[in-house]
């Protein structure tokens, strides 16, 4: 088992339980031991519009907590992953800023050094664990299903920072779905934003973005949407009904976390994947695939 500190962020541990439950049920089957640490806070990215120094300080603070244990970090949220990656880059290139941030962390007895490596679920699965190891564990292939993938903008942009997947043609989730036995066709809107970051300021427009992408996925006949971001899941799953009302469409798109789909293909029981918490009609996927969930 390889140990990783789990940095949960804000959204996953306070409401997106399906992601956390399915991650905790599936990753250990692939040799990953998730280590829970005390004392984490927000990464600061949602507050970047208010004060960028706050983002730097909060991110460095969380990195310092993991460094204390000498662990590499698994960051399931693309937004947190961006904040922590950007902070690492800025503090590496600007020693004066590093000193300044460290003087603020001293009050809590923390020191930022910059020693931990950062992973998201997708690159951990695809690049570290590897497709072969995933394929070996598949007992109930997700046959006859075709998923529209949605990564979350911050997982592939800005590429200048070094992101876990390619910025214009991400294929890692597609490759993983393929070894699970499913298909993942490309579609025109794949790289588009879910609208989530606009929710605090322009909720209606935000939901319009969400609804438009879902509508397009539905029209193209996908079996569902597979994703790897708690913010996007909140928009596409938790708020699907509202998004449908906003764009005047009856939306029926099953939306699942990639880790939930991995769990299904590995034969993990449904209650250990928290499938009851998906508000979109995921039973369509469970029933459509013979052998899974039947």
């Amino acid at each position, binding site marked *: 088992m390889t140990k990783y500190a789990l940095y949960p962020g804000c959204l996953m541990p306070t409401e997106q339980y399906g992601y956390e439950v399915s991650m905790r049920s599936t990753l250990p089957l692939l040799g990953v031991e998730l280590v829970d640490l005390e004392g984490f*806070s927000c990464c600061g990215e949602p507050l970047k519009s*208010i004060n960028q120094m706050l983002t730097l300080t909060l991110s460095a603070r969380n990195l310092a907590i993991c460094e204390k244990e000498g662990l590499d970090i698994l960051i399931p949220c693309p937004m947190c992953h961006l904040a922590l990656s950007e902070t690492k880059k800025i503090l590496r290139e600007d020693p004066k800023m590093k000193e300044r941030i460290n003087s603020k962390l001293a009050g809590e007895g923390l020191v930022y050094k910059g020693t931990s490596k950062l992973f998201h679920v997708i690159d951990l699965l695809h690049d570290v664990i590897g497709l072969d190891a995933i394929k070996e564990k598949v007992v109930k292939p997700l046959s006859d299903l075709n998923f529209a993938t949605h990564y979350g903008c911050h997982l592939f942009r800005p590429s200048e920072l070094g992101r876990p997947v390619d910025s214009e043609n991400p294929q890692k989730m597609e490759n993983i779905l393929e070894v699970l036995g499913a298909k993942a066709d490309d579609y025109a809107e794949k790289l588009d934003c879910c609208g989530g970051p606009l929710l605090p300021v322009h909720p209606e427009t935000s939901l319009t973005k969400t609804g438009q992408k879902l509508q397009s996925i539905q029209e193209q006949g996908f079996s569902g949407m597979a994703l790897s971001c708690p913010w996007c899941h909140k928009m596409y799953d938790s708020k699907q009904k509202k998004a449908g009302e906003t764009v005047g469409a009856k939306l029926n798109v099953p939306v699942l976390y990639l880790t939930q789909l991995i769990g299904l293909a590995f034969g993990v029981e449904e209650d250990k994947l928290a499938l009851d918490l998906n508000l979109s009609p995921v039973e369509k996927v469970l029933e459509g695939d013979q052998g899974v969930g039947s």
Partner: protein
Amino acid sequence: MSITDLTSRAEAQVAERKEINERLQKLQEEVSDFCYQCAKCTSGCEAHKLLELEPHKIVALLKRGLIDEMINSDMIWTCMSCFKCKERCPQKVAPVNILFTLKNLAVASGKQVPGDFTAMLQSAMGIGLIQDIQTVPTRAGETKTREQAGLPPCSKPKDPAKFQQTIMTVAMEKV
């Protein structure tokens, strides 16, 4: 200064503004050298179709130093921070970063922070997270707590008072 004072910003934050202005000046020099107004950023902008944000015009306004006009406009708050503009700029200009800095300046200048940002900031300063642990609905119309979902306790700052001190000094820092 209390959390409420911080978010309402009754007075302009002089030192903080100075620092943000320096950041803006650096960005201004960059765009003056590199942006040739091809508008590739705007053609791919997620907020353009629905809210008429035009990142190339933001860059043009910055070039001309029309900063007060921008921080007084609601337009800067329509960015979805998807980073497509930064990704696709042939000249490596980043309108998204200009917008972040303009929003920071607007806040430090005492402009009203729009929407739910204030609630998120207050929560982050209070408990460390942008929202507290929720009880969530199930598809069957019931509800579940984090504990009922079988999850361990949520990680939060151990000593909220010390944590608040850390981030308070950031937000209030005099440079």
